C-alpha cells in the first residue's frame, strides 16, 4: 500500500467509527425521549400498559371537567366517542381547553383507563383540530365533517 492509500484508508476508518458512535448516541437519546401517542381506543386494545410518558388525545367529554378541592387540580374524560380515558391533572387548564373540543394530554398511564396528566397541549386556534385527534376520531369511526372547521 502506498502511504497516500494508507492515509486515506485510516481517514475512512476513523470517520466510519466516529459516524457509528455518533449515530448510536443519537439513536439512544431518541429512543429515550420518544413520546408515543394513543387514542382511547388504542389504549383499550393494548395488551400491556406502556411505561413512561405517553400522549393521549381526543375530545374533552361534555360535562366531564371537575375541579377538585386541592390547589388547581382537575379531572376530566378524553373520548374518541367509542372509548373513554379518565385523566387527573394538576395544574392550570389552558385557555383553549374546552369541553367538546380536541385536546392532547401528556402524562403517565396508571392503568389502561386512567392517565395522570402532566401537560395539556392546546396551543392552536379555536377551530384547529390537532392532527392526532382527527386521526383518532377517524379510526374510531366518529369523524364528523363539522370538526373540519
Amino acid at each position: 500500500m502506498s502511504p497516500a492509500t494508507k492515509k486515506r484508508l485510516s481517514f475512512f476508518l476513523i470517520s466510519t467509527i466516529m459516524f457509528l458512535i455518533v449515530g448510536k448516541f443519537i439513536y439512544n437519546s431518541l429512543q429515550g425521549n420518544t413520546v408515543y401517542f394513543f387514542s382511547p381506543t388504542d389504549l383499550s386494545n393494548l395488551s400491556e400498559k406502556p411505561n413512561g410518558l405517553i400522549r393521549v388525545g381526543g375530545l374533552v367529554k361534555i360535562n366531564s371537567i371537575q375541579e377538585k378541592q386541592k390547589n388547581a387540580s382537575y379531572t376530566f374524560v378524553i373520548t374518541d366517542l367509542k372509548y373513554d380515558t379518565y385523566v387527573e391533572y394538576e395544574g392550570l387548564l389552558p385557555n383553549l381547553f374546552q369541553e367538546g373540543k380536541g385536546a392532547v394530554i401528556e402524562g403517565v398511564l396508571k392503568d389502561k383507563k386512567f392517565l395522570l396528566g402532566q401537560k395539556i397541549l392546546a396551543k392552536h386556534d379555536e377551530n384547529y383540530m390537532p392532527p392526532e385527534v382527527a386521526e383518532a376520531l377517524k379510526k374510531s369511526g366518529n369523524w364528523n365533517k363539522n370538526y373540519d372547521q
Partner: protein
Amino acid sequence: MTSNIGLISLIISSILSLFILILFFKHVLFGGPLHSKFFALYNASFFLIAVSFVLLVISFVVSDFSIVAVYENSHTDKPFFYKFAGTWGNHEGSMLLFILIISLYGYLFLIFTKQLNFSLRFTTIFFQTSLQFVFLLFLILTSNPFEKIFPIPNQGLGLNPILQDPLLVLHPPFLYLGYVGFSLVFSLLLGGLVTNQYNQNWAGLAKRWIFLPWTFLTFGIGLGSFWAYYELGWGGYWFWDPVENASLMPWIASTALIHSVLVMDKTKKLFNWTAILTILTFVLSLFGTFLVRSGILNSVHAFANDPERGLYILFIISLITLSALVIYILKSAKQTGDENGFILFSREFSIVVNNYLLIFALTVVTIGTTYPILLSVFTEESISVGPQYYNTILAPFVFIFLILMGIGPYMKWNKNSFAINRNKLTSFVLSSLIVTALVSLILKNQNFIFILGVACSLFLIISVVYEFAYFKHIKLKQFNFARLFSHAGFGFLILAITLHYFFSKEFTTKIQLGETSSYQEFAIKFSNYFSKQGKNYQELIGEYEIQKNGEKVILKPSIRKYSHPQQFTSETSIRGEWLSDMYIAMDYTSDASSGIGIRFYYNYSIRLIWLSYILITIGGLLSFVQRKNEK
C-alpha cells in the same frame, strides 16, 4: 376592483418572468446579444409584485370582505395595526410576502452590483427569476390571495387573537427577509458555476449576500423567541417545537456557510463544501416553509389548511434541489480550489472543526424534527420527541464548540500557531476557571454540567474581551467588530441559558381573593381584581403582590376574552429584577371571587438571553462596516 388589479399584476409579473427566462435561453442557445431591457424587465416584475402586495395590504386595512383571505382573517372590530399586519397572518398573504422578498433580493442585487461581470450578473438574475416564477405559479394556481367570495359578507371571521400582538408586524417579515434572502446567494452560486466564475472572487462577493439574510434571520428568530415568552404564557424562550426548529435549521446551516465562505475567500479552500452548504441553506429554508405551511404540524404557525398545498411545495423543493445538484455536479469539477492539506491549529483548521460540529447539531435537530413526521407517514405510530433529546445530545458539543470559538480567532491563516498562543490560552483557561469557581460559590451550585457550561462560555467571553482590550496598538477601525460582537453574544447566550436552566423556578397554584400562597422565598398575595372593556375583547385583570426577601412587587396579569373569533388569551405580567424576571400568567375563570389559578415563573437571567440575541444581531450588522485592513 383592487382585487382584480392585484391579481392582474401578479399574472403580468409571472408572464414577464417567463419572458425573462425565454430571453436568457435565446441568448445562451442561439447567441446574439442579450436583450437590452433584460434587467429592466426584471425590475418591472418586481414592481408589479410590490404593487399587488400593497393592494392586498390596502384590502386588509379597508376590510374588503369580497376577498376570501380578508373575510377569513379579518374583522372590522380589529385595531388598524392588526388589520395591517394581518395581511401576512394567513397562508395566502404570507406566500405573497415570500415572493415579494425573493424578488426584492434580486432587485437589490441589481442595484449593488453594477460593477460586476456582466455574464455572472444576468445569469444570477436568471436563476432568481426562475425561483420567482415557480412560486408565482404556485401562488396564482393554488393560493390566490385575491380570490373572491360572492355574495360579499358583511363581516369577517377575525384574526386568531394569539396573533394580535405588536410583534406580528415585525416577526414574520424579518424571518422571511432572513430565510427567503438565502435565495440570492443560491442563485449567485448557480450563476457562478454555470459561467465558470465560482472562485475566490465569488467568495468575496457572496459574503455580503450571506451576512445580510443571516442578520435578519437571527433577529427574526430572536423576536419569535421573545414573542413566545410573553404572549403565549409558556414561561420559556425555546421549546424545541418543530416550527422553531424549522427556523433553526437554516440558521445553523448559514452560520456554517458564513465561516466556510471566509475560508474560501482567504485560503482558496473548501470550494465544494461551500457550494454544498449554500444549496443546503436554501433548501432548508424552503423545507421550513413546507413544514409550517403544509399543516402537518400542530402549532400556532399552521393555518389549518389544505394538505395538498404541502404536496405542491414538496414538489417544488425537490425540483429546485435536484436542478441545483445537477448543475453543481456537472460544473464543480472544473473549478475546485486547493482542497487538500489542512494545517493543524491554523485558523482554517479550527473553522473546519467547528463546521463539523455545526453539521452535527444540524443533523440532530433535523432528525428530531423529521423523525416523528416520517414515522407517522410510513407507520401508524404517532410520536413526538421531548426537549431532553436535544438538550442531552447538544450540550456536550456546545461546550467544545465554545472553546474552539475562543481559540480559533487567535490562530493564523495557513500556519500552525498553537505554540505562539500557548501562554495566552493558558491564562484564558485559568481566569475562566477562577471566575467559574467564584460564581459557583456565590450561587451555591456545584453541579458538574453547570460548572462546565459557565466555564466554557466564560472562556469564550474572556478571549473576546482580551482581544479587544489588549491590542492597543491596533486602530479601532481594524477590529473585526462583526466577529467580536457575534462571538461574545453567543458566549453570553450559552452562559444565560445555563444560568436560566439551573436557577429558574416555576409553580402553579390557585389562590383565593385576599389570601397568600408561598413557594420557597416567594410569597404571592391575590389582592384585587377588576374587569375592563377593550376594542374587540373583554379583559379580567388580577392584582398580585409578590414578596421576595422583604421587597414587594405588584404584578397585574390578565385574561382576555375575544369576541371574533371567540377565544381566550392570557396576557402575562412581567417585572424585571436586574437580569431576571418575575412572571405571572393567569387562568380563565367565570367567577373570580372564588379564586383564580396562576402560573408563577422566576426566570433567572432571561434578559441576558435577549441581550445575547441583540449582540449577535449587531455582530451581523457590523459585518457591513468596511474594515481598514480589508481590501
